[in-house]
């Protein structure tokens, strides 16, 4: 074989190595999920969804866990979305090239890279202790809101940037002010993109465990939260609690709870992708 042939063989080999690399992660994920389904699927029934936690594995349920997650997600949504979207609008539409904008940009990119557990330490000190909220739903929601703020800001900016400048020009041409242009033209045109980012950020918040553990969310709560100042647990912490126990029955419970958590995560991600595709078609 001459050099050229050897090179072409190598080229073909790499192509298959590439296909293998692409599939290996997905195959492993499929094996994992398959395993979980086998372990946990038969454990899921109405009792599992509506029972309180218990020392006996076969009686334990995830009522407190999912209701805690729901409280956290709703509250986090209402705290983080207005702040995140407004900050995104400021940076994209108002921020002039200058020191402050530059600082804000570096800062947001840094915040996005801060490990989630550090946000937990922040929340523990600022919200739980100094603001005297205790380990409440409110403290947990504030902590997660700060955590997902960079995601929402970046997504908002990208969505605003994608709006064609002709829309802005037309609005200004008709005599609209800057804010009128943003409120009546740019925001509606970018809403699909912003929505996608918000849903992805919320999906991240649903799966977060570490910061809430640090804030003091409990592994065992015998009641569902009735208000924002109540103590709480969430689905991922319940899973963590069950995984950490040596008895096999509890790991079956964990698998069942993971199925529920994965359904929520994948559903949110699927909805986000759907909105993104729809929005991109509309824009172009």
């Amino acid at each position, binding site marked *: 074989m001459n050099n050229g042939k050897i090179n072409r063989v190598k080229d073909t080999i790499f192509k298959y190595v590439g296909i293998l690399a692409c599939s290996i992660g997905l195959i492993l994920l499929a094996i994992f999920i398959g395993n979980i389904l086998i372990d946990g699927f038969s454990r899921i029934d109405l009792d599992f969804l509506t029972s309180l936690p218990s020392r006996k594995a076969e009686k334990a349920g995830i009522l407190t866990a999912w209701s805690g997650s729901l409280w956290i997600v709703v509250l986090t949504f209402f705290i983080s979305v207005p702040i995140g979207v407004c900050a995104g609008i400021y940076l994209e539409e108002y921020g002039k090239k200058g020191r402050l904008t530059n600082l804000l940009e570096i800062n947001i990119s840094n915040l996005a890279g801060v490990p*989630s557990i550090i946000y937990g330490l922040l929340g523990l000190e600022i919200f739980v202790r100094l603001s005297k909220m205790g380990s409440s739903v409110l403290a947990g929601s504030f902590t997660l809101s700060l955590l997902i703020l960079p995601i929402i800001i970046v997504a908002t900016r990208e969505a605003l940037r994608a709006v064609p400048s002709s829309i802005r020009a037309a609005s200004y041409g008709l005599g609209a*002010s800057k804010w009128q242009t943003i409120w009546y033209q740019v925001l509606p045109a970018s809403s699909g993109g912003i929505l996608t980012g918000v849903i992805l950020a919320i999906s991240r918040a649903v799966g977060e465990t570490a910061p809430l553990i640090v804030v003091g969310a409990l592994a065992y709560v015998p009641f569902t939260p009735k208000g924002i100042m109540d103590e709480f647990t969430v689905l991922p912490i319940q899973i963590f609690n069950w*995984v950490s126990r040596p008895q096999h029955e509890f790991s079956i419970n964990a698998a069942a709870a993971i199925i529920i958590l994965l359904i929520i995560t994948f559903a949110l991600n699927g909805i986000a992708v759907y909105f993104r595709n729809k929005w991109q078609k509309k824009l172009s």
Partner: protein
Amino acid sequence: MKKYKEKLIEFFLKLTALVTILTTIGIIWVLLSESISFFKEVSILEFITDKQWTPLFARKHFGIMPLISGTILTTIIALCVSLPIGLTIAIYLSEYAHIKIKKTIKPLLEILAAVPTVVYGFFALMVVTPFLQNIIPGLAGFNSLSAGIVMGIMIIPFISSLSEDALSSVPRSLRDASYGMGATRLQTSFKVMVPAASSGIVVSVILAFSRAIGETMIVAIAAGQQPRLTLNPLVPVETITAYIVQVSLGDVAHGSLEYKTIFAAGITLFVFTFILNNISYWIRKKFREEYE
């Protein structure tokens, strides 16, 4: 009147943007203030040089090294898994795959990053460790090997997506020139495209590194809770993040030395990730305009 309203809105929007600055100040202030009061009781020298970390025992040692070694060990194992696979995927998608395949595979791979980390922890403990114990007889029930491998799978999309973006943004002309010289796709990939996209690829690796250092639930579940100064991947270790979780789950009184240790551990973690994130930000800024 209208102008006044416009100014007011702009001011309000500016305030919301400043929340992000406040967050950073808050993080640094919280970590510093608690750590400073920690270092009033424990000397920095002991913190850095002592080879044991036993703040929760009767005989207390405050050497951060075992936690750092546990963190670095799991991170390196994760990178050994994700770097070759992620880069191969990036090159395959940008140089070999049809555009339609690329558009399907990329979002599929990003599912890996969307799965909650507590789920990966379950995989590592319940699936990967028992499997590896069949192959490696001496493997402990908690170990950094399976935690690292699973973490590596999780960060594959960080490396593959960002590196693929970097490869795709290299101008076509470079690729065409290489093909014109009779080079194969493989030669073009490794001798032209990868060097040309190197800054973007380096950024992706640094970000994956930083992500792995800060990852918590996988190591807290599967790597164990025994701080140990070792590079042996088969025994239980404890990472900085896992230690913070361990203390948070227990009943530690506020103001006690044990309480302050999690902030001392936290600031160590924060310094590491802060440096890595800034290096990557700097590389991105510096090399962005290279081909424009």
